[in-house]
């Protein structure tokens, strides 16, 4: 694999770009691995990378039923932030943000991480109090957080709708270190970096069954033959329940819902931040990609689904929210929209934990927030698999927390997965 640096760029520039090697190999599956990660999304690839990098476990395979970047890695709105308040969550997401800050150097791949600020609007004194509490908690834990009054906000983003009499904008809660990144580059960067360290990335390799022996999973049946793994990790987001039942483990505190995202035609620079608008029944977040497209999204489709396609009522909902806050978008044309299958959990928080099978580990339940979490998710999942005990940050992110009554419910929405947006 050719390293990306100034010397190689110049050399290849003079040689007709003919010496670049492929980004990662396309190996045949070996019969057995030390660790097999099922799911070649951002979390699976990051896990494989940190297993090799941090724990020197290099005999690792990542099984992907489709192609790298074809699942939720390519179905998100690329927002990165760490504005969480619950114990465990804020440390975890803050570590993730710190990993993001150095990710391009770490992977030798430009993930185009842009810390352009995450601006969350508030529209009532109650909302201001509530968000002030959360952002104060963040500050107490060393995360950057600030409030912008109306004057500052108007100066920074002059073209919001400041004349909405039903939901007047009073100001915004801001995390300046937050922003967005290029989602494909993150998937490719982790795949390339993991491959360089010896990880086998097996695409078009769908898991069809498990063979159990002495309580453990001995081997995995796949569309590319039988693969043995000493340790096995699930990182398959919306399809976790399917694999879980394939391993005959029963039910999970997860429901699969679909979330839509939208991208418009490219326009001249219009928005320098990530803006979030949430009032009453509306939820809307928007940023502008480096190409100029407006990238935005809203709520779930409100009913359980494994279909990777969205439904029209939510398209209308999101368009209405866009017009309420950004009237200047009125004539912009939508290029495409897509839906990803979200593993919505009963309290809105994730799982990085052991399972009833001693050589099986679970990484799931990312709700809306899987993209920003991927570096830390890989980091702590690799840590769990290598050391066989969870790090302090994720010690309560397990399946037992519901029975113990220690749910990690950021939103306080209760046991209804679709409400944890």
């Amino acid at each position, binding site marked *: 694999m050719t390293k990306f640096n100034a010397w190689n760029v110049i050399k290849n520039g003079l040689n007709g770009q003919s010496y670049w090697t492929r980004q990662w190999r396309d190996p045949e599956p070996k019969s057995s691995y030390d660790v097999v990660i099922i799911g070649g999304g951002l979390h699976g690839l990051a896990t494989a990378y940190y297993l090799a990098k941090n724990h020197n476990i290099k005999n690792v395979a990542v099984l992907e039923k489709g192609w790298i970047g074809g699942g939720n890695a390519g179905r998100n709105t690329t927002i990165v932030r760490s504005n969480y308040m619950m114990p465990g969550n804020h440390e975890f997401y803050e570590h993730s943000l710190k990993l993001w800050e150095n990710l391009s150097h770490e992977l030798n791949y430009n993930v185009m991480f842009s810390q352009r600020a995450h601006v969350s609007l508030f529209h009532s004194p109650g909302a201001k109090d509530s968000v002030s509490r959360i952002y104060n908690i963040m500050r107490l834990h060393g995360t950057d957080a600030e409030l912008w009054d109306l004057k500052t906000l108007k100066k920074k983003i002059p073209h919001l709708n400041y004349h909405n009499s039903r939901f007047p904008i009073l100001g915004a809660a801001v995390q300046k270190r937050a922003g967005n990144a290029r989602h494909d580059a993150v998937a490719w960067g982790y795949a390339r970096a993991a491959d360089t360290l010896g990880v086998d990335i097996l695409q078009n390799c769908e898991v069809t069954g498990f063979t159990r022996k002495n309580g453990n999973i001995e081997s995995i049946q796949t569309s590319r033959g039988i693969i043995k793994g000493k340790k096995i990790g699930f990182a398959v987001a919306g*399809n976790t329940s399917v694999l879980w039942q394939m391993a005959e483990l029963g*039910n999970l505190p997860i*429901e699969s819902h679909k979330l839509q995202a939208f991208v418009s035609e490219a326009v001249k620079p219009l928005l320098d931040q990530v803006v979030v608008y949430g009032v009453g029944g509306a939820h809307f977040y928007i940023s502008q990609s480096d190409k100029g497209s407006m990238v935005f999204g809203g709520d779930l489709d409100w009913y359980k*689904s*494994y279909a990777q396609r969205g439904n029209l009522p939510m398209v209308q909902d999101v368009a209405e929210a866009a017009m309420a806050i950004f009237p200047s978008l009125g004539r912009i044309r939508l290029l495409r929209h897509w839906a990803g299958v979200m593993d919505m959990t*009963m309290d809105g928080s994730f799982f990085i934990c052991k399972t009833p099978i001693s050589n099986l580990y679970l990484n799931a339940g990312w709700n809306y927030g899987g993209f920003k979490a991927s570096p830390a998710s890989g980091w702590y999942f690799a840590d769990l698999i290598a050391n066989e005990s969870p790090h302090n940050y994720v010690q309560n992110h397990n399946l037992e927390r519901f029975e113990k009554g220690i749910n990690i419910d950021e939103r306080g929405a209760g046991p209804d997965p679709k409400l944890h947006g």
Partner: protein
Amino acid sequence: MIRINCPYCGERDHNEFSYGGDATINYPSLDASEKEWTEAIFFRKNIKGFQFETWHHSNGCRMWLVVERSTVTHEIKSVKPCHPDLQKVVKNNK
């Protein structure tokens, strides 16, 4: 758009309804163990395929329905009232 054939009102767009959830949950008795209650409240089959689920006709007759729907294709096989006795009352009052 999913079209749901409400037994009280006829076929309507799904945005007249709100999604409830898994219709097959049997809540245990009040003195059942914590484990049974945890299972009933927090754990789900999360079926990929046809499942029974509840929908509330919130912008219509406000009745709860049991819908058999595929979570992959969104095809609906059957729609029944959650409480058939209520349907009789509604019919008798007409």
